[in-house]
């Protein structure tokens, strides 16, 4: 595998994760717990879709086969998608969504902080812009961790359940393979073990302050690096891609 191929795969991981979690968040539109939060969730979804668009556009360029961001988003199947498993998990109740967002936002916050220093200028520039958005997302979801964790008995239970259910998808976020190794040696991607240390520290602090417990789940799910997803992704893509695919070669 050469650097170009590795970079393409790496960009798909970044872009797909943003696209899929943005899709999930957009499902909340019109169904949020209060009008203000509806607006906040759509806002965050919009940031994710914007970030995915920039990254996938660049991925297409790196690949060099003339594929656009839309080609990559709409014309790849489940097995070609590289998003983290946690991003495709169902919204569940508001607490589960907040748990998912908190786990992922914290990860993305530390990851993009490092990506700002990438030797690849485009990646660094995208990370620079996105990190500001992520900082805000994390602030928003962290506040909700406190409110739900230390709110009522019901909200506490719901959030703890959400964390417990999603915990098995957390270790996968820090897995590294030969793609990471190659890009780390080139100074393009960060070492995920550094991200992991930062992530654990922050997550532990917030969970403790929110009067919650770190889940004790031992079983770990993985597979997104090879395009092995949960069953949810197929349904998600079927919905996302159907109009685009039903009219081949149409412009929108």
């Amino acid at each position: 595998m050469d650097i170009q191929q590795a970079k393409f795969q790496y960009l798909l991981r970044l872009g797909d994760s943003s696209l899929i979690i943005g899709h999930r968040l957009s499902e909340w539109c019109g169904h949020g717990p209060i009008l203000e939060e509806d607006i906040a969730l759509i806002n965050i979804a919009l940031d994710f879709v914007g970030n995915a668009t920039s990254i996938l556009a660049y991925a297409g360029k790196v690949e060099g086969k003339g594929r656009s961001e839309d080609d990559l988003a709409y014309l790849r199947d489940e097995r070609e998608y590289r998003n983290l498993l946690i991003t495709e998990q169902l919204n569940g109740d508001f607490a589960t969504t907040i748990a998912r967002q908190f786990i992922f936002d914290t990860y993305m916050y530390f990851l993009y902080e490092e990506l700002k220093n990438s030797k690849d200028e485009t990646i660094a520039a995208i990370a620079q812009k996105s990190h500001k958005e992520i900082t805000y997302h994390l602030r928003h979801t962290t506040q909700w961790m406190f409110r739900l964790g230390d709110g009522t008995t019901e909200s506490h239970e719901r959030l703890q359940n959400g964390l417990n259910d999603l915990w098995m998808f957390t270790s996968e976020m820090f897995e590294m393979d030969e793609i990471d190794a190659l890009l780390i040696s080139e100074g393009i991607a960060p070492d995920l073990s550094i991200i992991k240390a930062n992530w654990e520290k922050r997550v532990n602090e917030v969970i403790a302050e929110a009067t919650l417990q770190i889940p004790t789940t031992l079983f770990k799910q993985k597979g997104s690096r090879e395009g092995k997803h949960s069953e949810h992704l197929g349904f998600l893509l079927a919905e996302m891609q159907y109009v685009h695919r039903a009219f081949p070669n149409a412009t929108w």
Partner: protein
Amino acid sequence: MTFIIIKLHLNNLIMEEGKQLESFEAKIAAGHKIEPKDWMPEAYRKQLIRMMSQHAHSEIVGMLPEGNWITRAPSLRRKAILLAKVQDEAGHGLYLYSAVETLGVDRTELLHQLHTGKAKYSSIFNYPTLTWADIGAIGWLVDGAAIMNQTALARGSYGPYSRAMVRICKEESFHNRQGYEIMMTLAKGTSEQKQMAQDALNRWWWPSIMMLGPSDDQSPNSDQLMRWKVKMESNDAIRERFIDRTIPQAEFIGLTIPDKDMKFDEKTGHYSHGKINWDEFFDVIKGNGPCNAKRLKDRNDADKNGRWVRDAAIAYAEKQLKEKQAS
């Protein structure tokens, strides 16, 4: 004796009220805005609450038919635009609820009226969005018609409503344009795309011209509301302007307005339209449109499922406050 005093008192009140009404009407005639704490006739207050809350509910319910296409938008660019647009609708709902709240009804009560079916919202959102072209048709026709109405209302006499309208109109023109752009792209696209655009126009045209409200002979009470600048123009006048502006836009992209009787009247300089099916309009208003039940259920579900979240946030804030006071 007591009787006389009461009578005198009552007369004074009536005179007082008469004076207040006089100065209220003079203010409006002079083009001044009425502000929340100013004296206003009860009928003015009631009518405003009714209109503004209907308007707010329409924005919120309107998020549903459009929101359900965000996940299926056919390009990432369209997805981002639609997200931004639906977010604006939520924002507009919020501005409007806060304008109604200045009249002393809080949002909890307003939403209760919506959820129990007591309050109305625009008839248009009880029609289903069946294809992607419907998102174009809504932006072009529904937002287009709404803008006609809202630009007029921005000149209305109630300060908070008028200011909300100014802000909304500014943001709404992007909605209108993105809708037309979707329709234009489809109309210029493959034959299937063009067919999709025409089908959407066929289905949304009549509901769009109906949503501007019953014709003037069926809409009572308008004189006083016009004098008070609660209503700025008659439904038929706004409808005429909307039709006059929209027909050339349809012609430009090669789509046909689904009204065989539509023709340009040289004498008046306006288009005359075919017979509007008002039975359908009143039926939808009454709750018998294709999506009334679904929309109301979605809003009710969101409200019910959000209850524990709202409670938790309040409980947390109370705990924080107590801790702060203790330390």
